[in-house]
């Protein structure tokens, strides 16, 4: 008893020091999170309970902004467009970035060069990329219409057509993001031990069987990460839409964040815009939790 007590005390004090050190390291991050993330979210919720034009004092209106949200056809339309964007964009992004990752994971010459090429759009600013694509899509002088013209296809108004504008923006988003997620998948692929594939080959498995039975299951954590992040990105899409179409033509590309921006800074309805932003936050949170739950269940 008597010999053990000081030892436990010594261990406790070391434990305490370690804990203090740990919290010390965590403190700046937690502080940043509180000030720059939790604080603004809380403040956005507070604003959402007010009528506020930014030019006048806030007026408490309770949940009136949320009631208005419920009956605002434009908000629901914008959510529908965002959902459509997400449904097309996320699976395509997953497929393309995984496909590219598998390609550049081959032990062939010049692979680092190809990896770099695919990654280049990620380092460009979203606005620069969007401006560049706006010219590529131009119906009169655009490169794309020139190329399809060589195939005998008549020129299209890629950004001026209700049917084509959203798909065109999705193409740009894919082009911008695929390099980043390719890198994430590549890291996941390189973590899979080669012995698994060698064993599968010995057992006579084809490449596609190895991909389906080894690669995909072992990439599940990576896929979950890509899925959650790309889904959040897709719900928050703004820059490329604003630069290329401003939500037009005829509101065909007015995603939710564009509508929030318009309400906040064109109509100066900051309280209502905050209510929409908060609603979008809840939607993203719920969808992300569902994804985690689904993956955990399947795992």
């Amino acid at each position, binding site marked *: 008893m008597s010999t053990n007590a000081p030892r436990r005390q010594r261990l406790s004090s070391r434990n305490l020091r370690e804990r203090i050190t740990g919290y010390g390291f965590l403190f700046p991050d937690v502080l940043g999170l509180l000030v720059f993330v939790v604080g603004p979210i809380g403040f956005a919720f507070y604003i959402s309970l007010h009528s506020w*034009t930014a030019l006048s004092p806030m007026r408490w209106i309770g949940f009136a902004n949320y009631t208005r949200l419920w009956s605002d056809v434009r908000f629901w339309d914008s959510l529908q467009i965002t959902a459509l964007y997400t449904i097309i964009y996320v699976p395509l992004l997953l497929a393309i970035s995984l496909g590219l990752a598998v390609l550049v994971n081959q032990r062939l010459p010049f692979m680092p060069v190809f990896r770099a090429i695919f990654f280049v759009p990620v380092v460009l600013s979203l606005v620069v990329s969007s401006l560049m694509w706006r010219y590529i899509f131009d119906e009169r002088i655009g490169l794309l219409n020139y190329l399809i013209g060589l195939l005998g296809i008549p020129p299209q108004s890629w950004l001026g057509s209700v049917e084509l504008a959203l798909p065109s923006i999705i193409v740009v988003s894919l082009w911008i993001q695929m390099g980043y997620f390719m890198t994430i998948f590549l890291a996941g692929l390189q973590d899979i031990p080669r012995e698994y594939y060698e064993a599968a080959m010995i057992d006579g498995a084809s490449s596609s069987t190895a991909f389906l039975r080894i690669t995909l299951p072992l990439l599940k954590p990576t896929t979950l990460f890509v899925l959650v992040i790309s889904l959040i990105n897709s719900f928050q899409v703004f820059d490329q839409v604003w630069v290329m179409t401003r939500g037009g033509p005829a509101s*065909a590309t007015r995603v939710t964040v564009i509508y929030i921006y318009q309400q906040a800074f*064109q109509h*100066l309805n900051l309280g209502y815009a905050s209510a929409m932003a908060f609603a979008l936050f809840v939607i993203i949170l719920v969808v992300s939790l569902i994804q985690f739950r689904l993956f955990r269940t399947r795992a």
Partner: protein
Amino acid sequence: MKRAFTAALAFGVLAWASSALAQPLQFWKFGTAEETANIVLQSWIDEWNASNPDTQVEARFIPWADYTGPTLTTAFAAGTGPDIFWVSPGLFMQYVSNGIAADLSDVFTPELRADLLPAAVEAVTVDGVPYSMPFEQEPVALFYNPELLAQVGADVPKTWEELLETAELLQAADIIPIVIEPAPGFYQNFTWYPFLWQAGADVADPDLTEATFDSPGAAAALDLWRTLIQEGYAPRTAPEGTNNVTSTPFASGQAAMQVVGMWAIAPLQSDFPELEFGVTHLPAPAGRDFVTVYGGWTQMVNARSANVEGAKRFTEWMWAQDVERPLEWVTEANTKFSPRTSVTAAGAEFYGQPHLRDFRDDILPTARAEPRYPSEMVLIVSEALQASMFRNTPGAQAAAAAQRELANYIRTLD
């Protein structure tokens, strides 16, 4: 003790007041410091500062998208809004109804009122009080390329019917018939309002007590722009906006006509000296009078400024005293009209030049001020126009849907 405290308090208040007055007045405007117009403004500010050491002014030029987007809003929200700033008709009422705009009655002297065009004063007046200083007018017109029209044997269209007939001929000759603004927003509405007015229609009554959009005239005006887009007579996109005329196919000689404002003259002449162009009325429905719109920014003083009087004096000095500065603004820094008759008279020689003469003699007399509708109304009209143009919604249907929304919105006013 009490006396000492009072003295200290008075000293503190005095020190605070003098430090507030010593702060330079903040003058905010869109654009970059390198633009010709802003270089001129900066030279005026330097001149003012040299002779007014107690009321210095500091200019801040803000990129267009930020100025018309979040910058002003967030600055006012944070209590750091500028002392003097420019405001568009679309946001004018927001600043007035929220108490940001200072009463400029003492700047609008009887002499100035007599010099200003009545419509210009009316456009900045609410309940008899002027809240902003008008200093420019930019009417919208039809710019045309006589060479391209001659290629198809067409005259400049004067009516909507002629416009569509000419467009058909031009399209058949592989010429872009006309450029109109395709992107939704304030500018598109601004350039479409003349077509609405020419058809005898309007968005609402002048006092904004009743929506009047559901009318045959509004439906016809919507249908005209619908036809221009749906028949492929006008491009569906404009990467840099059609207000930037140098980026449009009209400037490059590929389009025969464009709906654009007076500001387009100078860049067309300087950047495209080979381009031959003319300026005329926007086509009107047969038997109707020509009507157009003029836009223009106005200068507001922040009622919450620490030095409202200094900001007013500066505004008065810029635009309401001499003729030289307003004249330099409209004839050298830009190509515009002044709402002051004395300035226009002093620029008689300048306005006697080709194109400008057409604007002065023909187009300006038919121009109405840009309406100062709240942004919610702008959005409703914009959606009706966009639906007609890009979803091929018949004008009558789009106008009826917009009418319901406008009526609901107008009920929420007051």
